[in-house]
């Protein structure tokens, strides 16, 4: 922001003044974020879609503008004479020199009061520990029995039942009916929760109500309802109003869902997921079984191998081989012995032949026999002159008569 010179008063253009005013207003944090209450008048909504009106009380008036983009999200119908509270920021419309409230939210007067009450109750219960995370009960993954606390005629109930049918038709649903708006709503919800816990013992409870005005949802900001939720034996999931609505019941619940349908979704597994999980389990089953079979088969093969190594059959085979070898060796020994003996026999035969009388005769010796008794003559004393002798030579016999006897003489030395 350009500061105005202090000691050199000078005239400013209107544009400069208005711009300065605008900048001044926009630099004030209070003026940029405030609620203003008053009566709505001069309401207009031209084709541009922007909303213009004047907020006034008995003494003053303030121009209000709400741009189309924000105006489209308004949840109440505005009309002249309404008591409202408007939130926004104060600024300057430079062209017209007008001070305006640029609104971003409008609510019926009194809601602010309710909201303060809401905040006070919330703070008190929070301080008491009613909303502590440690108090929250776990939501069962596969609830067998689902309790529902809502109005039997509400669209919220149909939304929930359709969701449950689609996602988890295995569940058994017990509806504990209660009005969910009006004077009967608070005692009704408290009693319905208590009866449901006592009579049906559900695994989880859905406390639901469709969208509505703040007033419509007010029963769910009741302290008694919050305490009934906290006292419930079964965990409670709230699905109240729309995404943007937060109630005391939501804080007291074990789980808060943005809508009744979402509450049903949070309470249940999805059938498709369950089928996938089943398929996965079946596959695992198959896989581990295969692994086991393979392992067992491998171990079996190993054992069979060991068994074969130590089996009698192989022992017998061993022995058979050893026997075979022995046989071969003894056979060989036998043959050797035989051959040896044959050789020795031939030697003996040769020697025998060389020692035979014939071979002696062949060498020139002669054998002398007496003719009368065929006895062998070895000595001169066995013969006398005129004895008839036979002389056996190598190729025949000559008969001779002894003419001389010389005892002691050796042939050649006579």
């Amino acid at each position: 922001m350009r500061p105005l010179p202090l000691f050199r008063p000078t005239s400013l253009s209107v544009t400069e003044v208005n711009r300065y005013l605008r900048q001044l207003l926009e630099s004030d944090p209070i003026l940029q974020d405030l609620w203003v209450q008053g009566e709505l008048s001069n309401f207009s909504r031209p084709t541009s879609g922007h909303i213009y009106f004047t907020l006034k009380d008995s003494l003053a008036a303030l121009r209000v503008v709400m741009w189309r983009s924000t105006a489209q999200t308004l949840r109440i119908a505005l009309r002249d004479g309404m008591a409202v509270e408007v939130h926004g920021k104060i600024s300057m419309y430079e062209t017209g020199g007008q001070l305006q409230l640029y609104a971003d939210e409008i609510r019926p007067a009194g809601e602010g009061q309710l909201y303060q009450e809401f905040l006070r109750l919330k703070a008190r219960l929070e301080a008491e520990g009613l909303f502590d995370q440690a108090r929250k009960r776990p939501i069962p993954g596969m609830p067998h029995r689902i309790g529902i606390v809502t109005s039997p005629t509400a669209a919220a109930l149909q939304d929930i039942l359709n969701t449950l049918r689609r996602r988890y038709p295995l569940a058994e649903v017990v509806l504990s009916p209660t009005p969910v708006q009006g004077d009967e709503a608070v005692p009704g919800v408290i009693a319905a929760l208590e009866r449901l816990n006592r009579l049906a013992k559900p695994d989880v409870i859905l406390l639901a109500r469709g969208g509505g005005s703040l007033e419509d949802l007010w029963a769910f900001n009741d302290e008694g309802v919050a305490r009934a939720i906290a006292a419930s034996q079964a965990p409670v999931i709230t699905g109240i109003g729309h995404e943007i609505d937060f109630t005391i019941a939501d804080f007291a619940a074990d789980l808060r869902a943005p809508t009744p349908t979402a509450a049903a979704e949070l309470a249940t597994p999805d059938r498709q997921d369950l089928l996938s999980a089943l398929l996965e389990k079946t596959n695992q089953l198959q896989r581990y079984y295969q692994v086991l079979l393979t392992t067992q088969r491998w171990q079996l093969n190993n054992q069979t191998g060991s068994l074969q190594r130590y089996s009698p059959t192989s022992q017998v085979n061993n022995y058979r081989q050893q026997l075979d070898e022995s046989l071969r060796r003894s056979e060989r020994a036998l043959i050797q012995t035989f051959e040896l003996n044959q050789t020795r026999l031939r030697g003996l035969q040769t020697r025998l032949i060389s020692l035979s009388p014939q071979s002696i005769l062949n060498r020139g010796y002669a054998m002398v026999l007496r003719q009368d008794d065929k006895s062998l003559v070895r000595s001169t004393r066995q013969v006398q002159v005129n004895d008839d002798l036979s002389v056996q030579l190598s190729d025949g016999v000559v008969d001779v008569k002894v003419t001389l006897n010389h005892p002691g003489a050796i042939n050649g030395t006579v």
Partner: protein
Amino acid sequence: MAQSNPVEGLSYEQAFEELETIVNRLESNQLSLEDAMKLFERGHVLAQHCTRLLEQAELKIRQLTPADDAELENEG
């Protein structure tokens, strides 16, 4: 060993829980072949039962009435 409860009587939750237990036991790999085969067969029957339940189930709905209170009081 695997429970021999007839599978038909089991709720989905019970059957699926038992199936999970069986898969975990098979996974642990410390079973005799005979036990493993029994578990495997049981697991298969359980899985089929679960699938059948999921495909055939119809949401059962009942509404508490004042008579429920009276009934309970009579019983008690």
